[in-house]
């Protein structure tokens, strides 16, 4: 039996996508999701597992009708889904008001229960969130009864406030596979046994790396999982270290170059570090050539040889300023204050002469 596992799609979310974006990112997430369904049909996948947080917020009736329609069109694939901490089941949740297609097996109760799929000799176990946080380790005792040929646990959690999970305990449960959701970074928790598919599309500028879904196969011999990169865009962090020669123009050019190299379709977060020419100030607003920079952090400091300056100016204001802050941590506000103060005093001196 083969299956595709997705999780944390967060339909309805509109992540930061820079100046260029005009709401397309939100649509891209929907498109990605529908494309996965298309693949299920194309490849005639047996099972589609959705490990929670399909929606970013409470789903609307019309939204559910749409996805139910798409599910319904699948000729072979069976769909099993649970609700996560974002689209948790409330009393008035629309999840409960839809007449799901025949091939959809929702697990919307809030305690462990199962869906039996005779054609696949399979039972999928799981439960849905009924509130935003669950601090108990609810999967620790969720042992597989082993009365079906294949048993899969469909789970959502993995941090302190959302069902903490211990690898060892998970291993002891005895399933053929544990499909995990909630952590947005795809990762194999236990080789070919338990894995987070990660979010289908990256949802935040710190969710770098490739995103997509897991393709798996379960046979009598065991389970095999493979990550399939699929997301339309990536968030990329660019660390640039400047030096005294780097003018604003040069920096702008360098950033443009790096973006072209890494892909102008992707989305970027730029981190600037290093020591710059004290007279140069980088105009942050002007560095976004392609309109796809989400954030720029300027950690550069003016290049001064502080010890030297101190030695030469011990008696006067400049020396005292340096002396006052010299001992502070380089990342601290005090150190920054020293950099700013020194450059201002020296700049004022430059002006006078």
């Amino acid at each position, binding site marked *: 039996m083969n299956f595709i596992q997705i999780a944390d799609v967060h339909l*309805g979310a*509109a992540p930061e996508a820079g100046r260029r974006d005009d709401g397309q990112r939100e649509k891209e997430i929907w498109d990605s999701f529908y494309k996965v369904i298309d693949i299920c049909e194309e490849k005639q996948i047996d099972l589609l597992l959705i490990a929670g947080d399909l929606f970013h*917020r*409470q789903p*609307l*009736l*019309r939204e559910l009708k749409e996805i139910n329609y798409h599910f319904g069109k699948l000729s072979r694939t069976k769909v099993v889904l649970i609700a996560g901490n974002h689209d948790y089941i409330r009393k*008035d949740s*629309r999840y409960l008001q839809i007449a799901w297609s025949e091939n959809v097996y929702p697990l919307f109760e809030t305690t462990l229960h199962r869906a039996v799929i005779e054609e696949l000799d399979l039972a999928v176990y799981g439960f849905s969130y009924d509130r935003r946080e669950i601090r108990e380790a609810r999967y620790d005792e969720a042992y597989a009864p082993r009365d079906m040929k294949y048993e899969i646990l469909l789970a959502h959690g993995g941090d302190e406030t959302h069902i903490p999970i211990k690898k060892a305990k998970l291993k002891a449960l005895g399933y053929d596979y544990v499909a995990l959701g909630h952590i947005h970074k795809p990762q194999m928790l236990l080789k070919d046994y338990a894995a987070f598919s990660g979010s289908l599309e990256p949802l935040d500028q710190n969710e770098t790396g490739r995103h997509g879904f897991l393709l798996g196969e379960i046979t009598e011999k065991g389970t095999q999982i493979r990550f399939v990169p699929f997301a339309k865009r990536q968030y990329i962090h660019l660390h640039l270290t400047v030096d005294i020669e780097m003018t604003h123009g040069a920096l702008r050019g360098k950033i443009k170059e790096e973006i072209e190299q890494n892909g102008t379709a992707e989305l970027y977060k730029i981190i600037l570090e290093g020591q710059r020419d004290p007279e140069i*100030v980088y105009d*942050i*607003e002007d560095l976004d050539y392609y309109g796809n920079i989400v*954030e*720029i*952090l*300027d*950690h550069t400091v003016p290049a001064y040889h502080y010890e030297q300056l101190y030695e030469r100016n011990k*008696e*006067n*204001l*400049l020396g*005292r*300023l340096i002396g*006052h*802050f010299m001992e502070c941590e380089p990342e601290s*506000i*005090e150190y*920054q*204050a*020293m*950099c*700013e*103060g020194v450059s*201002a*005093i020296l*700049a*004022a*001196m430059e*002006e*006078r*002469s």
Partner: protein
Amino acid sequence: MIIRELYLKSFGKFSETKIELEEGFHIFYGENEFGKSTLHAFIRSMLFGLTKGRGRAAKNDLFTKYEPWDQPSYYAGEMTFESGDRTFIISRRFDRYGKSASLVCQTDGEILSVEQGDMDMLLDGMSEAAFENTISIGQTKAETSADLGAELRNYAANYYCSGNSEMDVERALAILKERRKTVENRQKEIRKKKQEKREKVEQQAAYISEEIERKQAEEEQISKNIEQGKQEEKRIVRTPEEEQSTEKQNVWDVVKIKLLPVVFLAGVAGISLLFQGILKWSVLSGAIILEIVFLWKLMEAFRQAEEKVQQETEESREAEKREVSLEHEQERHREALRRMVVRRELLREEIAEKQMQYENLCEQGEELMEVSEEYVVLEEKGRAIQLAEDTIRHLSTDVRKEFETRLNEVSSEILCAITDGKYDRIFIDENTNIYLLQGAQKISVGQVSRGTMEQIYFALRMAAAELMYEEEFPVILDETFAYYDERRLENTLRWLAENKRQIILFTCQRRELEMLRKLGIPYHVNG
């Protein structure tokens, strides 16, 4: 620095005049109009240049004052001086068309540039204003201790503009403030973008909220209509049935009533006939008439009853017709009611959906309130700049205070020396009131004589010159000792001889000369 030669090419009333100066006391003695102030001005002009003022100021400024009487178009001079181990010649021309300045080192032939600040460097950064406030001493213009205190404060301020530290604190603070503004502006940009997004979401939410209200109002209206309809329904159903039942009763009642007397009459007639037997014919006819009447009455009763029944059948048929049409009305009514109920259900669903949408939008709005990392970094930067500003202010106050204290100390030393120990100390309190300490006694400067005031003035200036500059400059005294008594003069001259390399004194009295002679201090005199 030692001034070696003054060469007045064309300055004031002087033309092609060279004056050599020595170390030690150099006295220019002469009555007024001798040119003492011209020479004083010349030295100053050679050190700092001379520019013509503008507009009204031009009439009485120095430039105009010393413009050569004979040849105003040639206004120039040269001065030779020693600084460090080298000798320099500075040459200046002040007239408008030939205005220039050149500086040459006589010792090694190096050509320096006045424009590029080489003269300033040799002067250790002393400005013209500082010159006036330190080594060029006239008579005090300070009448009160407040003025003196203000002067002291001035020195401290000048300390930053001239002297050792070329640090312009105010400018540095201004630069920092500008930077802070830039950071704040960027933060504002970020906030604005967020705000725009938020407003869009809020607008959507408001729109949906309106729709919800509208639909809820509609729902209410429909609910009311449904209630009304239900009431209507009840009323229509009750009436026709009741009417029918009451009518049915009446037909038979009528017949019964009419028959009763007829039956009774018949009965009476029959019985009486029986009991009468072979009665008279009249009785028999009477009985027959009675029987006829009885029959007629009976027939009438039946006829009436028939009529009644017919009437009633008609009426019931009418009633049936009415019933049918009423039933139709009822059906229509019920149909309308059903439709309203369905519509209401739909509305309720729509409202629920919209409310969910509204909630989602509110959540989205809240998510937008979150602060980005960039904003946090900027926030930190802003705080760092503020910290720099505060620290600089704070430190510069420290430096200023220290300088004031030192100034205090050194002027006290000098004052003590020139008053022969009479006053040990000057000090200034927070309100710039100056006090003198005489032994243990505190004397306000307002209480002392003009002469003492002059000495304090002198001491302050000498102390300032010492503290602000590395270079030792010649002291230029212009009628300084007019108010000094013998004792004071003696002490001061002695102090000068012991502490200064070159003292240039302009005076119109012989006192100083004679005192120097008396003290055995060597001097040179021009005059």
